[in-house]
């Protein structure tokens, strides 16, 4: 048993993750405090308030982070909050463009009036610093090439004083750029959505109050979908993830039992 071919393990895990898409059991998705805090904060915002959603990720982590972006974008549109969608990563705008269009159509929102979609601009930290001082300097035009001075949404959005919340969705340490060049010098309110790999690293920053909250991995996205009552991509995947976890836990237990048994046999022989 301990010498089982790893490909059989892959096959079992693959089946455990594919079958739940056909046989849903409706397992509950409990809400964590880190996710609820972001939801509650957005609920307190009014239609004049501005939320910046920055999709700082590449396609390699898209399945985890796009559902988060989608859920928060929809929540803001639902509450008539102004949204600026952007990305510090070159691939970001291409990844979020279809979600923005779909959500805007669903909620009947107009680009340039209810939300704005910014293009990728080179510079990472320089972009963040420019945005804090003067958004027009960071983004002279929007994603579609229209000068932002011509867009009605930017009539009252100039600099950090006008941003009520910034959420960075990232699979890297890009949240650190917003923290270092946005939150600390200017005091803007920050939240983040990160891949599960990075989630454990974020807790010290939440405990210190530097981040309002965090969406960690697909689970965080599924929690947010549950809160806004729109069960979409993340919720679909959670059941598969739960079953895969059960299988992995079983394999860990079996592997350890096998290891202990072999160690005892070796001891007995010697």
């Amino acid at each position, binding site marked *: 048993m301990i010498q089982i071919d790893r490909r059989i393990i892959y096959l079992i895990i693959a089946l455990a993750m594919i079958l739940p898409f056909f046989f849903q059991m409706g397992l509950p998705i409990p809400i964590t405090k880190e996710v609820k805090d972001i939801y509650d904060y957005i609920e307190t915002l009014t239609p004049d308030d501005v939320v910046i959603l920055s999709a700082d990720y590449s396609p390699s982590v898209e399945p*985890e982070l796009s559902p988060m972006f989608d859920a928060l974008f929809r929540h803001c549109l639902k509450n008539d909050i102004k949204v600026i969608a952007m990305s510090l990563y070159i691939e970001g705008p291409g990844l979020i463009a279809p979600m923005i269009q779909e959500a805007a159509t669903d909620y009947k929102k107009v680009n340039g009036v209810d939300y704005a979609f910014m293009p990728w601009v080179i510079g990472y930290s320089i972009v963040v610093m420019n945005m804090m001082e003067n958004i027009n300097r960071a983004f002279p035009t929007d994603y579609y090439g229209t000068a932002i001075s011509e867009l009605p949404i930017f009539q009252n959005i100039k600099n950090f004083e006008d941003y009520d919340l910034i959420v960075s969705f990232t699979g890297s340490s890009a949240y650190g750029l917003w923290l*270092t060049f946005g939150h*600390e010098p200017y005091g803007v309110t920050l939240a983040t959505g990160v891949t599960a790999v990075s989630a454990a690293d974020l807790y*010290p920053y939440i405990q210190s109050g530097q981040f309002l909250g965090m969406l960690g991995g697909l689970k965080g996205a599924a929690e947010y979908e549950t809160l806004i009552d729109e069960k979409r*991509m993340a919720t679909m995947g959670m059941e598969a993830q739960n079953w*895969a976890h059960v299988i992995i836990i079983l394999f860990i237990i079996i592997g350890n039992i096998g290891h202990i048994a072999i160690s005892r046999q070796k001891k007995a022989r010697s």
Partner: protein
Amino acid sequence: MQISMNPWVWIGVFFTFSVLSFLYKDNPFYKLAEHVTVGVSIGYGAVIIYFNSFIPRFYQPVFQDGRIELIIPAILGLMMILRIVPKYSWLSRYAICFTVGAGSGMAIPRSMQASVLRQLEATMLNLSFTSGEGINNIIIFVGVLTVLIYFFFSKEHKGVFGGAAKVGIWFLMIGFGATFGYTVMARLSLFIGRVLFVLRDFLGIGLAG
């Protein structure tokens, strides 16, 4: 079930299975997918940088608006590229010096504030055994102290000091365990993304949420 007729979806499915085939063993399909990914990423990046950065941030300001001061950073950029020419590669050091100097000057004070001073401040907590929050604060305080002791190598880990370092190891192990658990979750999520793509976008199977 309604199989997609979109050729891009078919290409996506082909490369999805090409990459996953590596789990069986290394093969030419996996190699092809790997090389295409690298090529497409670089090509995509080059085009976007040209149209989103070079044209509006250098070409237009310099040649249409007459902002000749932008030639200075452009020269630094060219010096950086000279790294690939062995005879003039030494020139790239000046550009790197400028970048490192400016980058450090901008980042160090702010990073100290964001990642060191504020984190230190967050460990100065009210300790008590009478409330849940107080007990949490004690755990944070003990964790920070014992992990720092573990990483203090100028004194041998013996006696009370060694005991504290051992407690520090336990905190580290719990941290690594949490990170590993999260990592497993992340990898599974990526596979779920591909499964959803194949079932929903390619095969057109309506999935219940």
